[in-house]
Each structure stands twice: as C-alpha cells, then as structure tokens.
C-alpha cells in the first residue's frame, strides 16, 4: 500500500472540479482488487521467456522492466505485465517483420471469446506496401537511408530498445538490471529519465500497457489477466449486449472503500477526457511517446500535471 501512496499526488480541488459535498480530499489507500471473472487461455505465437528479436539477456532485462511498469504478485494480488507476457509481446513487435504477415494488425472480425466458433484475430492482416513502409520505418528506423529521411533521421524502436536496455544494465552497476529487486529497479527507472534509458521508458511504458490491456493474440494479456482485474469484457462480438445489459444498472455493485472514493474524487480533473474521439486524438497525436502524451495532458488538465517522481519518464 505504501507505494501507492507515494505515487498518488494530492491534487486538491480546482476551479473546474466540483465536489458535491465540498469536503477536502485526502490521499487514498486502496483496497486490493478481486480477481477477475476470466480465466481462459488463448493460443499465441509468442513463446514465453524466449527471445525473438532481442538477445536472451536483453529480453531478461526487458522482463525486469515491464515488471516495474505493471507489477504482479506478490506485491499485488493479480499477475502483472511479466506474467502477462508483455516483454515477449514487445520483443515480437520489434521482430514483427521476421514473420509473414508481420504482427502489426490482428485479424478480423471476431475472436472466439464471444460466440464465434473461429478466432479470426489469430490470423494477422497482410500489410500493403504503404503500411509496410511506415511500420518498418517506425520499428527499424531510417538507418541513414536518405529516401527515409525526408524529415530527418528516424530512430527506430529496435535501436531505442537495444540502447535503452543496455543503459539500464549499465546503470545497475555490478549486477544486471533483471537481478535487482523490484524496488531497486523501480528506483533506477525513476532516476533515469534522460538519455537512452529515458528514451526506452518513453516508448516501453506505452507498449507495456497496450499489450497488458489489448487482445491476447498480440502476445500479452496472457490468460486475460489484464481484462480480469479491470472487469473489462474485451471484444464482445458477435454476442454483444442485451437491452437490459445496456439500460439497467448492474445487479450488484462492489463496495468501494473510503480511500477509493477519495481517489475517484482526485481523478475528477482527468474524467472529462472520457470521450472516445477526443481521447483517441490526444493519444494519436502523442505518436506513442509517453513524454508527448504527458505534455498533451498537461495542457488539458488544469494546472498541468505534476508528474515529478512518479511517472518514471
């Protein structure tokens, strides 16, 4: 619980935040969440623990990093990014063009989780020449090729990961990053927001939550753990929702602790971003960079966001 307190800032009440009872806000102490309702596994083409693009030591370092981003047991009650396969999914993304078709866009229209007898998601889409050009540039970088440097050099994710993972290991001193305790790794991540390690964290944190909370066919969210503790139904086609499920309140509500309710109040400044179009555009304009996204949010949420010491970037 203590780590939660460290990372949640008391924001206070702003002009644009109206609390119904007008009470002062306090820091939240969170109750442990319950395990989710999902348990089924899904066949994936990503092998747990085995490197595809990265070297095995690099993958181990990356596994240590995603564990910092979304920690699992025993610190938390639910599995985290390590057990969910996020490191292997990132590795597969870095090596996306080593498979045909590249693992960029999962297939369509349905998985087999909501009534379809066939899982179309497993058959990744073929990219056309334009899509290949864009995704190769993003992943591999321009690497000095003038035809790709029409707006200057592009550093690809492969290089960012390679150099960043090496920087984390170097920062770990006599030991390797992966051999540090979770607290040591967390501290090291928070103290290395610049340079190659910072550049790595800038893209690796978004990749980690994408694979944690995205469709498991991409290699993460193993056993649907990310959808379980968030109570997210995932893709619900072709079954969909009934009229009653849309229109009626849930038959039972979980009980929130006073600390959780206080935390919800603290999140009020962010809540207006709960608009799919607007949020989608905000995230898209960040270009996958955590720093850019923070800058966007800092513009939109009053007073900016004091992220010092708690965002790891």
């Amino acid at each position, binding site marked *: 619980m203590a780590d939660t307190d460290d990372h949640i800032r008391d924001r206070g009440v702003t002009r644009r935040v109206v609390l119904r009872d007008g009470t002062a806000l306090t820091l939240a102490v969170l109750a442990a969440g319950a395990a989710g309702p999902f348990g089924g596994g899904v066949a994936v083409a990503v092998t747990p623990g085995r490197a595809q693009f990265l070297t095995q030591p690099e993958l181990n370092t990356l596994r240590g990093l995603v564990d910092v981003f979304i920690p699992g047991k025993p610190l938390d009650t639910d599995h985290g990014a390590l057990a969910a396969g996020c490191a292997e999914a990132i590795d597969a993304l870095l090596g996306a063009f080593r498979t045909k078709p590249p693992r960029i866009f999962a297939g369509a229209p349905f998985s087999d989780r909501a009534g379809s007898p066939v899982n179309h998601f497993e058959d990744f889409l073929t990219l056309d*020449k*334009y899509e290949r050009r864009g995704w190769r540039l993003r992943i591999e970088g321009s690497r000095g090729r003038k035809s790709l440097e029409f707006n200057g050099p592009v550093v690809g994710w492969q290089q960012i990961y390679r150099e960043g993972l090496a920087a984390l290991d170097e920062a770990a001193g006599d030991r390797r990053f992966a051999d540090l305790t979770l607290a040591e790794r967390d501290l090291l991540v928070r103290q290395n927001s610049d340079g190659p390690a910072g550049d790595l964290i800038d893209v690796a944190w978004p990749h980690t939550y994408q694979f944690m909370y995205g469709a498991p066919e991409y290699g993460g969210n193993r056993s649907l753990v990310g959808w379980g503790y*968030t109570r997210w139904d995932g893709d619900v086609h072709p079954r969909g929702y009934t009229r009653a499920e849309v229109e009626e309140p849930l038959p039972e509500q979980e009980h929130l602790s006073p600390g959780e309710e206080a935390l919800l109040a603290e999140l009020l400044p962010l809540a207006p971003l709960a608009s799919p179009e607007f949020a989608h555009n905000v995230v898209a304009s960040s270009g996958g960079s955590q720093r850019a996204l923070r800058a966007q949010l800092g513009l939109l949420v009053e007073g900016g966001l004091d992220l010092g010491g708690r965002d790891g970037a």
Partner: protein
Amino acid sequence: MARDAVVVGSGAAGSVAAWELARRGFAVTVIERGRNLRAGFGKRPSHKLGTRYSSDEIKSMRQLGFPDPLLEPYTARTRDEAADGVERSAEGALGQLGAAVGGTTLHYNAKFPRFWKQDFKMLSDLGPVPGAQVADWPIDYEDLEPFYDRVERQVGVQGDQDAMPARTREQSPRSRPFAMGPNPITYAAQLLAEAGDGFGYTSYPQPAAVNSETFKGRPACTSCGLCSGFGCPINARGDALVSWLNPAVRSGRVRVIARAFAYRVETTKNGRRARAVRYVDRRGRRRRIAGDVIVLAGSPINTARLLLMSASTPHPKGLGNGSGQVGRNMMFHNLSQVAAVLPDDIHPLRGQSNSLQMDDLIGPFTGSEVTSLGVPYVKGGLVQVGSGVPLMLEAALLGGYSGHGRAHKQLMRLGPLHRRVAGSQLVGEDLPQAGNRIDLDPKTRDWRGFPAARITYSPHQHEKAAITLLGARLEAWHAAVRGAIGAALIPTPLINSGASQSAHLAGTARMGTDPKASVCDAGGRLHEVANVYVADASTFPTFPGFNPTNTIMANAMRVARGIG
C-alpha cells in the same frame, strides 16, 4: 458518350458525389490515397462485405485506416507562434482524418444530426463579429432538406422524432420520420438525462447512422460500445462505403483507384478549365487522369493542400485562389469535455456511445451576460450525452496522470474512465477567421516529397466566451447526477491556444456569392475554374455545432446534382 468525372477522395463527400454523378450518367473515377479494407468491395452487395476491422484496441491505437504520421505528417502552430515567426511547433498525427476507401466514415461515431435553419444566415441575423469572417451561406436549410432526406434514407438513420424538443423540430424540420427507432439508451446517458431534467434540459436519442434493426440486409447494432475509432465488425454502421460507394462501383459506372495520391489539378493554359488530375499510384508512378469535371472531396485540410499545390501561372497563389481565401477559415469544432464520476459501475461503454443528444446549449445567447465577455453573441452546440473510454485509452490517460507502477494498476482496477464516468461533449461552434489557415509547410514533407499541410490556428474570443458561459452550466448539470462524487470540465478553447483535438473539420474553400471573398459559388464550383467543384466541408462558410457528416453528405449530393 458519357462525360468523365474525377473525384478526389472517397469519404463522406466523395462517395456521395460519385454515386450521384454515376446516377446522372457520368463515368466516374475516384482517387483515394488510402487502401480498401472491405473484402468484396465492388463485387458483393454491401450487406455481404467483409472487413479488416474488429473490436481490437491495439489495432485502433495503431491507426488502421489512417494516414501514417511518419509518412504523411501534418504540422501545426498557434497564431501567436506564427506571429513570432515559429514555423511549426508540432508535427505528426494532428487532426488527420481517415485514409481508406470510404474515408473516415469507416470508423466514425456515426452521429447524424442536421444543421439548423438559423445556421445558414448568421451574418444577416446576428451581425458581424470583430476578428471573425462570419458569413451567410449562399443556400438555406430548405435547399438542403431534400438532400438530408435522401441521404438519411440511403444511409439508414435511427432516431425518435417525437422525443425531439419543439425547437429542434422547428429548426430542422423533417419531411418524414427516421428510418428506424433508437438503440437502447445506456444507463450512464439515462442518469445524465435525469439530472438534466432538473435544469429544464431535454435529452433525446441522438440521430445516428447505426442500425437498430436490419436495414438493407445489414444487421442491427449489438451495442458493443466500440464505435468511434473502430470499424464496425458486424456491418451495422451506415458508412459512405456501404451506403454509396460500393453500390456505385457495382453499377459499373464508378471505379476507385486506391493508394493513389492526387497532387495536382492540371488546367488549360489560361487556367479557366481543368483538364486532369495528376496523382502518384501505389507503385510510386506519376500518372494523369483526364476529366471533364473534377470534384475535390479530400476533406478541408487536404482539399486546401491540393489547391495550393496546384498553383500555376494563371493561378499563382493556388488553384482558384484569386480571393486569397483558399486555406483560410479553417474551423475545428471545439469539443469541450465534461464528466460526472460515480462510485458505482455505470458501464458507459455498454451501448452506443453518447446515445443521447441535448440541444439547450446551441443558442444563440445574447444580452449583457454575453457582451460582458467581449462578443456580441455566443453560439454553443449540441451536447453528446453519455460517454466513457475503452480500456486501453484509459490506460494511456491514467498512465499520463499517475505514471507507471502499482498506482497505475490500482487505478485501472478501479476503472474510473471505463466504468464510473458519465461524460459528455459540447460540440462547440468555431467561428471562421482569416488567420486560421492551412498552408504548405516550407520544410516538412510527406514521404513522396510533397509539402505537408500546416495548420495555423487559435480559437476566437467567441469560442472562449462560449465555454465560459456554457461550461458552468455543463458542470452544474453533471454534478447533479444522482450518486455522483462530483463533476469536472475541460474548457478546451480556454486552455488550448492551438487546434482542437477534433475530427470535425470545415472551411478552407468557402462558398459564397462574392468571388473576392469566397472560393466557390453556391454550387461548389470554383469561381475561377469552370469545371472544378468542391464537395466536402471545405465549402462551409461557418461551422455550426453539430456532428457534420449528414450535412457533408447532403451538400455533396446537392453539389453533384448541380454539376452541369
């Protein structure tokens, strides 16, 4: 022998224009920079088309069906930055619309309201606004109504005419009821509607191009909730492709060239007629296609870019730009966001997002309360009622807020933005300004070497006044939601001096009767080029606060029908 028409862009405007021109006997070629994402396109009836879309958040976040921001960036800056000589302060995915056969409609939210009568005569009725180029439209609501009606019948629109407020019915009269009744209304939207009752606000089912029953063989929506930013996996959405383009191609009179980027409209030596469109095909070859009629429908930013890239000796400032207005009056809806947060799980993502609409903040508002804010009047817009965001967007937003670690995981477990929020958006009207413009970036290029579109934009005092006046009402309404912990507002124009994060774009080639002050005539034809028409929202002289697709389609059909 059929006359040849070339349509640039296959979205809401281009698909309708192609369909109408084909109906009238033209041989139509559509040039589309994106790819086809619908299996069977042009071969099978629309209800039997496949799709590459799914309820897959990673795919959505990776922007399937959008231009790649590394290959085709836009750049942007504020007006103050421009005045200081800053060439650009942002680059990348900045308001890019979709790039696929069928355009942005493949993954739009499918909200389908009409503009109001009062929107077409703002200058005459309300007078000028200093610093803005408010203008009357050269057409009236009555000119568009038959086309609204035709479009809605073809696309399939759900709604409830009886539930609409009297003023809405009076301002946007209909000649027939909606094709189908509304989908189930989300519980979150119901809570907001109930709270709005206390303020005298009327919320009603928002018209939407989404099937609530089988329509033309396409199935009813199953309320999955993943609409905006997602293609519909079950083909329940009335997009431009299924409604117009696919039937048009199957008629044999329309062909579509996908992954073809139009970079120039070629004219005769004297510049009075266009002869052809030059484009780069999917293999990178430069091609030319002749046309008796050229229709531009690439959306406001891209249409302006193409006109500016088509500069020539007779059109030194860009094609049809003798007025200097091409690219100017760029308008974005200023989506101001408001939300209530509840301790209960109110599942706002179960069901069509924003299932209700509220029109009581459209205005115009006048009086001392308004003039004290520095403007003669304020127009707001409709309010989309009842939203949340799906899980991965929530992870991104909370990640920017809390950073990583167990704190983030705990927030995700709590699920404030996908389980406990009832959000709404004011689709705020944006007044046209000469200084808000699209031009060609002097340095940044796309991957083919063509100059990127550069957006120079800042909101007008009107937009700031509007959210100052209306934001307090929005916030009070949401704070009154039964059981809410509280409510908050992001008054976008007040805190963001740059372009709004909105997919609603208009302006850049306004229509009007005066060639010195407008780019197109009332029929969408360039004043200076006899056979070039603009069919998209570029022509809108003003941008009232309604989701624009219905009006884009209706106006495109009107323009296409008027082509001689």
